[in-house]
């Protein structure tokens, strides 16, 4: 599964507790929409770090990288590329 689908699946099933991937639009506001709170944010970061073997720094833990599924995908792809 590609990065986008993996992240989306994690958010939909583990954070939103839904089954249908269509409930979450790739451009939906994850933070402002109240989907991700401070606990879930850390859960999501740990998931990404473990899944892709990357380390997310305190500076990268920022709204710009976590705003939407699309923004998060772009950020994670960049991390994977620079790690590899």
């Amino acid at each position, binding site marked *: 599964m590609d990065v986008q689908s993996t992240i989306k699946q994690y958010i939909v099933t583990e954070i939103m*507790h*839904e*089954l249908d991937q269509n409930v979450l639009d790739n451009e939906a506001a994850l933070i402002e*929409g*109240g989907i991700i709170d*401070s606990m879930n*944010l850390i859960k999501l970061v740990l998931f990404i770090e473990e899944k892709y073997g990357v380390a997310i720094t*305190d*500076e990268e*833990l920022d709204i710009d990288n976590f705003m939407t599924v699309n923004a998060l995908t772009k950020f994670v792809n960049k991390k994977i590329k620079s790690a590899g």
Partner: protein
Amino acid sequence: MVYQIQHTLMKSAKRFPDKNAIVYHDEKITYKDLDVVTSKLAVTLLENGVRRGDRIGVYINKSIPAVISILGILKAGGVYVPLDANAPLTRLACIIENSGMKCLLTSTRKGDNVQQMFPEKNPLDVVLLTDDLKRLKEGLPVKVIPWKEIIEKGEVSLPKNLSIDTDLAYILYTSGSTGVPKGVMISHRTSLTFINWSCDEFDIRPEDRVSSHAPLHFDLSIFDIFTSLQAGATIFLVPEEFSIFPRRLIKFIQDNKITVWYSVPSILVHMMVHGSMKNHSFPDLRLILFAGEVFPVKYLRELMGIVPQADYYNLYGPTETNVCTYYKVDQIEPDRIKPVPIGKACSNIEVFALDENNNIVTEIGKEGELYARGSCVAQGYWRDVKKTESYFIKNFLNSGFDEKLYRTGDIVTLDEKGNYNLIGRKDHMIKSRGYRIELGEIEAALYSHQDVKEAVAVAVPDEFITNKIITFIVPKKPDSLTKNEMEKHLSKLIPIYMMPEMIEFLESLPKTSNGKIDREMLAAKTK
């Protein structure tokens, strides 16, 4: 004279007309402008039939219009009911119906949810939109008034407000054990008791720059908004989208030169653990207040090293008493592991602990349940006489006087300095991330699923968030339920902070010798 909480604004608007009252991102509003626009809103509400004592909902993400809404409602003599903008719609519908509100202030984006909440019959008469868009996507069968119509009103004069200090100012809904949230009724007098005390005790001044992190449906917001207005200070609303990013919060405090910070401890811990707070300096912070949950001592000690010049206070009080005790943290003994005390009573308040024989605890270290009396105590629960009578009891220690005692359900001990220390709960209410949660509400939500035979929610202590919630479910038919299905079911009924950290399926629940579910054994199972 200040005898209602909106008078704090009116008084400060005369003293500091051109001073900023609220700052949010790049938006600012001065005291004078805030006073004018809230009067316009109040007049609009009155023109639309709002009367003294009417409950009016505020369903908007934190913003300047959200604060304007609250103050406008109060000026009209109404009672504001803040709704959690991110709560599930079924829960919000329940609150709207329970409060009996006929009027709601909301944004266009949130307003579209109202139709979904009430697919058949909508209890609202009027919806005021706090942004410039004129119509809702889904046509609501109610009168809709756009913001523009309110703010473009000419000069208004506020008619004489007939309400008095014992009238309700707001109703805050908290978790209820039967699955229906309870509305805690707070009068102007009760709220002002806290506002005046906190303004004096912490010496909040016009030059203070006060952060507002707590959501408006959380009673910490009363300090942020009204104590600041009382002092003529400036309120800096923490944008919700920044509130979970530790670095943003750190930058927010630094860039805005925040002098007073008030939040639940877990958000401060979040900044230390995930934001490397220790690598930053905060020269402007003079006061850090925390409340709502236990501050793990090792992190409080670390914070006091990072911001050494600030004064630290632990504030304690269930929503039913606003804040009733406080403790100034001067220094923490290096070997202390126990949380800092909740301290002593605030002004105009008396607290005491009663042992199992209803005798006042005076012995050091002896446990008792904490009771509060005085003008800090709420009026009771909205439209729930039974619950009100069981928690707001007649003061049996002073029979003959018509006064109430609030039974907190918190077990405390006294220390040698006369400070109270929090030991735990008497019932199944717990704290997690500063939110109070009735485990019964989660259980009621679990039981509402047709395939659940038995269910229980237990709390397991956690270093970061005070308690983790674990649930155990016995399905009617083996293997007929999945974790995901249960989570989906719960997410429609309870807010995100009540969601269990773990769901486990069992064939049966362990019972104690008298047939009750053995919660202790289940909690121990998770360790």
